[in-house]
């Protein structure tokens, strides 16, 4: 194969070569297509390394063709695969017996299990957590919210891309032996646990449903509510009312205690309505109803419900 490269002038990929590949992997999905998915991006990412390893044009041709085969995994988990592929290509360029099948076998063998790690960890755990952290700051107009989200996410992402690629490069093929079990599986499970915990909390905090209908009206006994006739006017009166009201812990504001449907639901457990709505959405999604249809239906229900006084 690479007859020109003998032991004495061994071609090695420097750190800067590897960094170029890592940077290019940022654009992995640029040519994502329905036929071979991330193939164009994978070949594009490998180019700096291939140019160095295969100065011979024929070798370069077959290398480019080799990496235009079908490829698809989580965009960030491509990094360890790139690392291993770099190690294999380097061995091959230096005369080792590594054929096309080995390289493609390693790529295909790793992409399945690694995609399974990336989705729960990045899309369903890290992004919802950092995103909701940033969003909760941003809701009050605090510009730190978006900055925090952007910086934190990208620091985690770039560190992950670089270190897992290096890990793959140093481990060579050893990493595949582990891809189907062990540590990866543990990370995925741990991330799912934490993700579910946070999602549970977010549903309580951020799904807002407020049922307006009044369930019961109970007249309060005298002395349980503020006697507005006995309140002096002016600042003194405001002071007296606020003291008696005591942030809702003291006297009631009105003679009649109104209990809305929302109050009843919240006294069972706060956020119950939000939880039930989420379960309904889950059920609909399982029935293969498109999320877009559900979203539009919720808007219609929200508007219609508001008009008839439900919300």
């Amino acid at each position, binding site marked *: 194969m690479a007859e020109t490269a003998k032991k004495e002038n061994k071609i090695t990929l420097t750190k800067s070569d590897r960094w170029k590949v890592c940077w290019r992997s*940022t654009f992995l*999905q640029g*040519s994502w297509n329905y036929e071979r998915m991330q193939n*164009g991006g994978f070949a594009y990412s490998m180019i700096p390394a291939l140019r160095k390893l295969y100065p011979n044009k024929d070798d370069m041709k077959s290398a480019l063709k080799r990496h235009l085969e079908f490829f698809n995994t989580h965009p960030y988990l491509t990094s360890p695969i790139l690392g291993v592929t770099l190690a294999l290509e380097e061995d091959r360029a230096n005369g080792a017996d590594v054929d096309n099948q080995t390289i493609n076998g390693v790529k295909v063998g790793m992409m399945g299990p690694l995609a399974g790690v990336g989705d729960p960890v990045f899309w369903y755990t890290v992004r*919802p957590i950092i995103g909701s952290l940033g969003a909760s700051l941003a809701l009050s107009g605090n510009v730190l919210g978006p900055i925090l989200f952007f910086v934190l*996410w990208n620091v985690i992402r770039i560190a992950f891309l670089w270190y897992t690629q290096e890990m793959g490069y140093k481990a060579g093929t050893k990493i595949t032996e582990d891809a189907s079990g062990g540590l990866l599986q543990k990370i995925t499970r741990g991330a799912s646990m934490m993700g579910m*915990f946070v999602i549970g909390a977010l549903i309580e905090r951020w799904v807002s449903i407020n049922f307006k209908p009044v369930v019961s009206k109970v007249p309060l006994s005298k002395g349980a509510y503020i006697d507005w006739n006995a309140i002096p006017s002016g600042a003194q009166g405001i002071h007296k009312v606020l003291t008696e009201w005591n942030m809702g812990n003291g006297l009631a504001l009105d003679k009649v205690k109104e209990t809305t449907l929302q109050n009843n639901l919240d006294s069972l457990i706060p956020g119950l309505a939000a939880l039930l709505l989420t379960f309904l959405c889950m059920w609909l*999604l399982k029935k293969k109803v498109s999320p877009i249809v559900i979203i539009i239906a919720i808007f219609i229900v929200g508007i219609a419900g508001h008009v008839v006084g439900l919300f």
Partner: protein
Amino acid sequence: MNAIQMILVVIVAFLAGMEGILDQFQFHQPLVACTLIGLVTGNLTLGVMLGGSLQMIALGWANIGAAVAPDAALASVASAIILVQGGQGQKGIGTAIGIAIPLAVAGLFLTMLVRTISVAIVHIMDKKAEEGNWRAIDLWQYIALALQGLRIAIPAALLLAIPASLVRQGLEAMPQWLNDGMTIGGGMVVAVGYAMVINMMANREVWPFFAIGFCLAAIKELTLIALGGIGLSMALMYLALEGSGKNNGGNGDNSGSGDPLGDILDDY
């Protein structure tokens, strides 16, 4: 909005479009895209607030498997432009989001279109590989990426081309009940994203974590960071206890230490 601001908005839209497919820097996430559009049009605070509200809805949106999520990039960019052009300030956030959702659906068709065009592009790459022409492969990678950018930049430019007064009139013509209803719908629609996440991750092992998270969230003193800390600790404890159970001769679980990757990680 003056010409320079419009150009900057289109550039932000282009970035958001590219990121919508790359999913790396997160320029397509509402929190970032709306903030940037707010920044370049001189409505920073408004953009940040819109971004926060829309981010809550889009938290669980991710394209995985058969589930196709609405397009966050077009939703963010379009709603931010409408909010700025409408000139209603904070009052307009609910409406802007309500309008953004159907546009997020439209964005989906555009991304499908570009992904189909990319099939032709990788066939060109095949030919160039045959010639060993790596420069051409680079070029076509950038062209494909630029198409994804244009997917959002062109609709953004079209929205900008509509006179602000027309947007304003349209928004003002909307009755109050419709505005309020959209805001209420926006509060509920957040559940869809969470439901997608749960459907993807839920199994018997993780449901208790969900229940604890839901119950603890009612304690308002616990910030999100505090809740994250509790969740992380519990997950670590669970995995650690499971491992120790196995060492004491517990029932056979094939996960655990002794894996080569773990050794590599330790070397770092």
